[in-house]
């Protein structure tokens, strides 16, 4: 064990990814899995990496863990450049979708393995194993063989196993995807507790917004290998920086309508060729925006649309139920949009209704880049 290793383990640790790019070569074609990602993960924070399948989140995680080397860019743990360090040296605790356990060993021995490897006394091992299994509610299974357990318990053992190691950082790759819903919730709460209790950073990868929004202090939303926004869950929801984040966050995501900004007798309207026309003169700096953008994407969340006695005339095509709300799929001038309104609203499929937008929640995006203008 060299000195730098010891230092990293004890003083840990913030993580800094500096312009990370990862290119995989497959025959003659190369695929850019991660593209110029710069990310700072302060110590003691819970960070989520969120995005659809193939967005680069798992590759990013593997680069942090040292399981992949970046094609370019550097990885820092604290002030130490660990880019060329092996995974084992980084002391990163990893939990994967499918728990990795020794099937023929008992739960106790599975948890004790990392401790035995670092030459802890059997007495201390016993104390630690009991403590962690008490915490995770697996104390009754310590003598069972790992292969005898169901998936929920196995994942708990996998978590216990990495907890006793006193790692520098926890890395979790969709750890709850295969766990049953009830156990999933319990484990979510436990993971948050572990992170607060141990004061370690936790990096959590998922395609499920509810998983990361529940747990994370900050979330990096990724798509096509890039980090599109790195922010608090509230800001991702309230101030998405581009259309992808607006769509990905929210349940269902934001509606978008390609519009033109049209000035007419001193007022500014959102218009479409099909006849949609909505006065947005009240938006801050709209006259400046209208002079630099002719085309914009109008974005509004379903829950920020209300039924009204006037406004935009639409036709209701489909109604979904969501708790005490309903999601109306409506057609407005050839565009399909979703509106989330109280269940008590009197609307039927086929009805012609009027909707209006919450003025404070209207967003405009640049159609060229997808980036938010306001």
């Amino acid at each position, binding site marked *: 064990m060299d000195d730098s290793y010891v230092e990293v383990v004890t003083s840990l640790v913030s993580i800094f990814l500096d312009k990370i790019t990862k290119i995989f070569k497959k025959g003659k074609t190369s695929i850019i899995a991660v593209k110029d990602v710069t990310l700072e993960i302060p110590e003691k924070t819970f960070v989520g990496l969120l995005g659809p399948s193939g967005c680069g989140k798992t590759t990013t995680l593997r680069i942090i863990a040292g399981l992949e080397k970046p094609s370019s860019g550097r990885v820092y743990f604290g002030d130490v450049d660990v880019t060329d360090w092996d995974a084992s040296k980084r002391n990163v605790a990893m939990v994967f979708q499918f728990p990795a356990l020794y099937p023929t060993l008992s739960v106790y021995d599975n948890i004790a393995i990392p401790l035995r490897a670092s030459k802890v006394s059997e007495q201390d091992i016993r104390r630690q194993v009991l403590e962690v299994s008490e915490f995770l509610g697996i104390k009754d299974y310590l003598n069972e063989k790992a292969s005898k357990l169901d998936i929920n318990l196995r994942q708990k053992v996998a978590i216990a196993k990495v907890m006793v190691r006193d790692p520098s950082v926890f890395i979790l790759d969709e750890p709850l995807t295969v766990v049953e819903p009830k156990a999933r*919730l319990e484990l*979510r*709460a436990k993971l948050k507790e572990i992170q607060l209790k141990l004061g370690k950073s936790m990096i959590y990868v998922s395609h*499920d*917004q509810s998983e990361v929004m529940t747990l994370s202090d900050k979330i990096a939303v990724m798509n096509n290998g890039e980090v599109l926004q790195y922010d608090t869950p*509230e800001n991702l929801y309230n101030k998405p920086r581009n259309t992808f984040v607006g769509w990905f966050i929210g349940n269902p*995501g934001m509606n978008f309508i390609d519009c033109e900004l049209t000035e007419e007798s001193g007022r500014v309207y959102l218009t479409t060729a099909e006849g949609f026309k909505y006065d947005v003169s009240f938006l801050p700096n709209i006259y400046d925006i209208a002079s630099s953008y002719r085309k914009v994407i109008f974005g509004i969340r379903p829950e920020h649309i209300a039924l009204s006695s006037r406004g935009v005339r639409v036709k209701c095509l489909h109604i979904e*139920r969501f*708790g*005490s709300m309903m999601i109306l799929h409506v057609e407005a001038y050839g565009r399909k949009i979703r509106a989330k309104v109280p269940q008590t609203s009197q609307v039927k499929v086929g009805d012609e209704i009027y909707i209006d937008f919450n003025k404070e929640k209207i967003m405009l995006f640049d159609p060229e880049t997808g980036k938010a203008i306001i």
Partner: protein
Amino acid sequence: MKQFLPTIKLVDICKKSNGSLILKNINLEIPNKALYVVLGPPRSGKSALGRIIAGLDTPDTGRILFDDQDVTNLGPVERNVSMVFQDFALYPHLTAFDNIASPLRKLKLLKEEIRKRVLEVAEYLKISHRLTHYPSELSGGEKQRVAIARALVKGAQIIILDEPFIRLDLKIREDMRAELYRLQKDVGVNIILLSSDPIDAMVFSENIAFMQNGEIVQVGNLTELYDDPKNISVARYIGVIEMNFIPAKITQENNRKVLDTEIGKMALPTIPQLLEDEILIGIRPEHIHIGEEDVPSHAGNIFTFEGRVKIAEVIGSETIVHLDVGLAEPIRVLVPTIYKKNPGEVLKATFNMRDLYFFDVSGRFICRGGDILG
């Protein structure tokens, strides 16, 4: 396109597998030109039922009628039924055109005939412009259309989709469901959706059969199953978030009947005769309100309780707050906004007793709070 879209009638269907009865006396009528959802937990018999409708399996007893024709002994091809399994498996190395053409190639049809039929069905499903593309270049909704086109081109009149969304990212499912609904409405084909995901009932709410343990428990539209569930299983399964259940006992206090529950006593003006001493009350997460929200009217019927936050689960635009009230399971509350709360915080919650569901100890539904409170 020529269409013969039959109504399906299942009469007294039983089926054994490995010695146990997996379908128990199924009687069901599936209307034509509809999207019909068979919903139930895993291993409830949905797939077995689907296979029998498709003609992939024959029932031990009972008959299957398409309109009035007995098809019990006909195979899938003669019945014109096509069963599509998880995630719309397309051949990745074939274009959309060749994927759709694949069943016709097996029939050794002339090239021109194949071309004519593929173009016709593609036109019908509005994917003509995507035929030269490979599956990896298609959106989720387009893949779905190609898979359905492949079933239709063979002349299938009934398409059975077995858990089509289960392996897809949650965000993709959102759009796929809306697409499927529209597609079915546009072309009027018979679609039977076998699903274990309650969200499918929220989206395709018109025709639902709920299955459990090889039996059809209840048939109806979403409102019927949601407001008037036959028993606790239906009540638990039909909903965005699972219903909360609280054991209760009817007692007498100062000449008034009182509902004594683990979270407090509720005074009810009248208690119907049919209510037993020991009952279970159910309250949906969306009917409970927390703190800052407006308390709904009918203040006289409002019940207030306190709970300690176990975890606040942000699911996108909403939050599920799990409140520990000393019961075996926490009480779930659906808050319609992003509502970040730390574990341990004590919150006040309220619900209107009109929204309660009453069940007897065997789990049979008795009535709603509103039925008693008037």
